[in-house]
C-alpha cells in the first residue's frame, strides 16, 4: 500500500475512533453470569459501600448458607446496575438475584427479563400496597421491596426557635411560607432542596407536585403550575439559595449541616447524620398545599429474580429471597442501612418497638407513592425527564412556569405516544 494512503487511512481512522469510543461504549461488557458452578448463586446489589467483610455481605451469605448454596455477590453503583442488568439479560447471563432501585423494576420487567413472584412462588400479600405498586406492571408483580425510604422535611430546631416558629404549625404551604418569611427576617436561610436536572430533581419535586393535587399524566395543569411557582417564589424571595438548581441531595444535606438553614428536604437515609449534627434537629412530613401530608415518592430497592434458562434454580432463589423478606429480615435490613423502613405492617411494628424515633418516617412511608405506580410503568422515566427539565427552566429563569410546563407536557406526550 502506498505509504501516503496508509497514513491518510490511519489518521482518518484515529480521528473517527477517538469520537467513536463515546458512541461505542453503549456496547459495554457483561458481568459474571448465572451459569456459575452449581451451588453458587449470583447476587447483584447497588451497595458498593458495603465491602466483602461488612455486616450486609455476611447477611447475604447467611441467606445463601440457609438455602444450602454459596452466594457470589457483586456490587455496582445504582445507575450502572440497571445497565449491567440489561446487558446481562441480552447475553443470557443474568444473575439469580438483583437488588434494584424501584423505578427500574418496570423498565426491566417490560423487557421480559424478570420472573414474576407467581413464577417463583413468593407470597406478597403482607407487603404494603403503595410500596409494592412500583413492582407491579399490568397486574403482575415482579419483585418485593426489601425496604422503603422517602422524603420528609428536616428542620433545624435552633434556627426555628430563634425565629419563633413552631414546627408543629407547618401543616400546609401557607404555614411553610410564613415560617420561611420569619426565618429570613431573623437573618437565617430558609430552605434547601435539590432541583438538579436528573431523576433526583424529579424525586424532590414530586411531593410538592403531588401535594398540589397535580398528576403526572398532565404536567401543565394549574396545580402543577402552582407547585413549580412555589419553588420559583422561594428562589425569588431569597428563601432558598440559587444553587438549588444544581444541588444533588447530598449537597442539600451538606448545606443543611452548616446550620444556616431552617429546613432541608431530604430522605430517611440521613437520620443518623441528623442525630450527629451539632444542632438540634427534627423532622416533619412534607406538607400538602391545603394541609395534611403530601405523598412523597418512595425510594428503595426491590429484590427481583431474572429469568433463568435452568428453571430448577428458582427453588433455591425463592429460599434466598424469602430469607431476606421475613419480618426479622426486614428489620435486620433496616438496621443495616439505618434508612430502610420495612414494607410490611409487622416489620414496621417491630422496627418501631426497637426505635420509636422513626415514627414520622414510618407514617411518611405509609403515605408515600411509587413513581411508576398509577400504571405509568415505563412511561415514568420519559415523563420525569420532562418534569425535571421544566423545573430547571423555571428556576433558572429561562421560561415562565406555564411555558415550561406546556412544553414539558407536549414533549412527554410525544415521548410516550399518548
Amino acid at each position, binding site marked *: 500500500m502506498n505509504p501516503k494512503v496508509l497514513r491518510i487511512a490511519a489518521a482518518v481512522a484515529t480521528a*473517527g475512533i477517538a*469520537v467513536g469510543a*463515546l458512541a461505542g461504549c453503549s456496547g459495554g461488557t457483561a458481568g459474571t453470569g448465572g451459569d456459575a458452578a452449581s451451588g453458587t448463586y449470583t447476587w447483584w446489589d447497588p451497595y458498593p459501600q458495603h465491602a466483602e467483610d461488612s455486616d450486609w455481605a455476611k447477611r447475604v451469605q447467611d441467606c445463601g448458607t440457609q438455602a444450602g448454596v454459596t452466594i457470589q455477590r457483586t456490587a455496582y453503583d445504582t445507575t450502572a446496575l*440497571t445497565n449491567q442488568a440489561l446487558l446481562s439479560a441480552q447475553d443470557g447471563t443474568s444473575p439469580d438475584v438483583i437488588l434494584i432501585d424501584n423505578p427500574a423494576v418496570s423498565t426491566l420487567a417490560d*423487557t421480559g427479563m424478570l420472573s414474576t413472584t407467581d413464577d417463583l412462588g413468593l407470597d406478597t400479600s403482607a407487603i404494603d400496597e403503595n410500596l409494592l405498586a412500583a413492582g407491579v406492571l399490568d397486574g403482575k408483580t415482579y419483585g418485593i421491596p426489601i425496604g422503603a425510604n422517602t422524603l420528609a422535611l428536616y428542620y433545624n430546631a435552633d434556627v426555628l426557635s430563634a425565629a419563633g416558629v413552631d414546627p408543629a404549625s407547618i401543616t400546609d404551604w401557607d404555614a411553610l411560607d410564613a415560617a420561611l418569611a420569619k426565618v429570613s427576617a431573623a437573618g437565617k436561610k430558609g430552605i434547601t432542596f435539590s432541583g*438538579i436536572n*436528573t431523576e433526583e430533581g424529579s424525586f424532590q419535586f414530586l411531593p410538592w407536585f403531588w401535594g398540589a393535587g397535580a398528576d403526572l399524566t398532565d404536567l401543565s395543569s394549574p396545580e402543577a403550575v402552582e407547585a413549580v411557582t412555589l419553588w420559583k417564589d422561594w428562589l425569588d424571595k431569597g428563601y432558598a439559595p440559587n444553587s438549588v438548581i444544581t444541588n444533588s441531595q447530598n449537597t442539600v444535606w451538606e448545606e443543611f449541616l452548616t446550620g444556616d438553614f431552617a429546613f432541608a428536604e431530604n430522605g430517611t437515609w440521613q437520620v443518623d447524620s441528623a442525630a450527629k449534627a451539632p444542632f438540634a434537629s427534627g423532622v416533619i412530613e412534607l406538607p400538602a398545599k391545603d394541609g395534611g401530608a403530601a405523598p412523597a415518592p418512595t425510594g428503595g430497592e426491590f429484590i427481583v429474580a431474572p429469568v433463568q434458562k435452568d428453571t430448577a434454580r428458582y427453588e433455591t432463589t425463592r429460599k434466598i429471597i424469602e430469607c431476606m423478606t421475613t419480618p426479622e429480615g426486614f428489620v435486620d435490613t433496616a438496621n443495616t442501612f439505618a434508612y430502610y423502613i420495612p414494607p410490611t405492617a409487622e416489620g414496621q411494628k417491630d422496627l418501631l418497638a426497637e426505635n420509636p424515633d422513626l415514627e414520622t418516617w414510618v407514617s411518611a412511608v405509609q403515605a408515600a407513592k411509587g413513581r411508576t405506580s398509577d400504571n405509568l410503568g415505563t412511561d415514568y422515566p420519559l415523563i420525569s425527564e420532562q418534569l425535571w427539565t421544566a423545573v430547571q427552566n423555571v*428556576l*433558572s429563569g429561562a421560561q415562565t412556569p406555564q411555558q415550561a410546563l406546556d412544553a414539558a407536557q407536549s414533549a412527554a406526550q410525544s415521548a410516550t405516544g399518548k
Partner: protein
Amino acid sequence: MSFPTLREHPRASDDTVAVTVPAAGRRRRARLEGSPWVAAAFAAPLVIYLVVFYLWPLVRSIDLSIHDYTVRAFVQGDAAFVGLDNYIAVISSPTFGPALANTAIFVVVSLVFQYAIGLGLAVFFRSHFPLSGLLRGLFLVPWLLPLIVSGSTWSWMLNSDNGIINSVLGAFGIGQINWLTSPDTAMTAVVIANIWLGIPFNLVILYSGLQNIPTDLYEAASLDGAGPWRQFWSITFPLLRPVSAITLLLGLVYTLKVVDIIWIMTRGGPADATTTLAIWSYREAFGTGQPDLSPAAAVGNVLIVIALVFGLVYLRAQRRQENS
C-alpha cells in the same frame, strides 16, 4: 547558515552502509520472508486488536443507530430496522440546532484559549530558569487529577451562593453571578473549566515541538537584530506549524467528545444551555431512567462524521504543504 550542510552528511554515510551489508543476508531468507502467511501472522495481533476494540464498537454504534433499540428490543434482540429514521429524528429535533451551536462555541472558544495559553507557556518555559522544571511539572496537575475531582472542585468554586469565585468578585463590588445556574453564564463557566483542563496538553506538545527548532536559528536571528517578538512570529510560529496543526486537530477531537466535565458541572443544563452533542448523546443513553440507545448512537455518529471532516481537512492541508 550552517544547518543544510549538516543534514547532507549523515545521509551520505547511511547510503554506503545500506547497500553492501544487509542485502547479501536478506537473499537467503527471501522465500520465508516473502510468504504471505508469515506477513499475515505478524499483522494478526494488530488486526485482531483493531477489529475487536475499534472496528466492532464502530460497527455496533452504526447498527444501534439504524435500528429502533428500545430497552425491550435491546434485551430480546429484535430491534426493528428503521434505516435513517433516527438520524432524521435527531437532526429535526428542536435540541439539535442549539446543541450544534453549543458544541461549536464550546470547541472553538476552548481551543483558541487552550492553544494561545499553552503556546505562551511553552515559549515561556523554553528559556530555562531556576525551578522552571518544577513549575512546568505543576502545570500538568490538571491533567493528572481525576476529572471527577477537578469537575467537582470547579463546581464548588463556581457555586452561586458560597463559591470562592463569587466571594472574590464580591470583594471587588461585583454582585452574585449565577455561574452554573443561569442559562446566560453556564456555558462560560464550563468553557473556563475546560480551558484549564486543556492547557497542559497544549503545553506539553507545543513545548516538545519547540525543542525541535534549532537554537542556531535564534542565534542567527538575534545577530541580525531580531527582537523576541520578531523571533516568535518569524521563527517559532512558522516552524511550529506542523506541531500546531496536529495539536489543534487532536484538541478538536478531544473537545468534541467532552462529556465528563460538563456532566459533572451542569449535566447539560440549565435549560440545555450547556448541552453539546456529546452531552446530548450521553443523556439519551445513560442520563435518564429509560435508555434511548438508538438516538444516542445516532448523535454519536454525527459527532464521528464531524471529527472525520476535520481530519480530512487536516490531511489536505498537510498534503498541500508537502507538495509545495
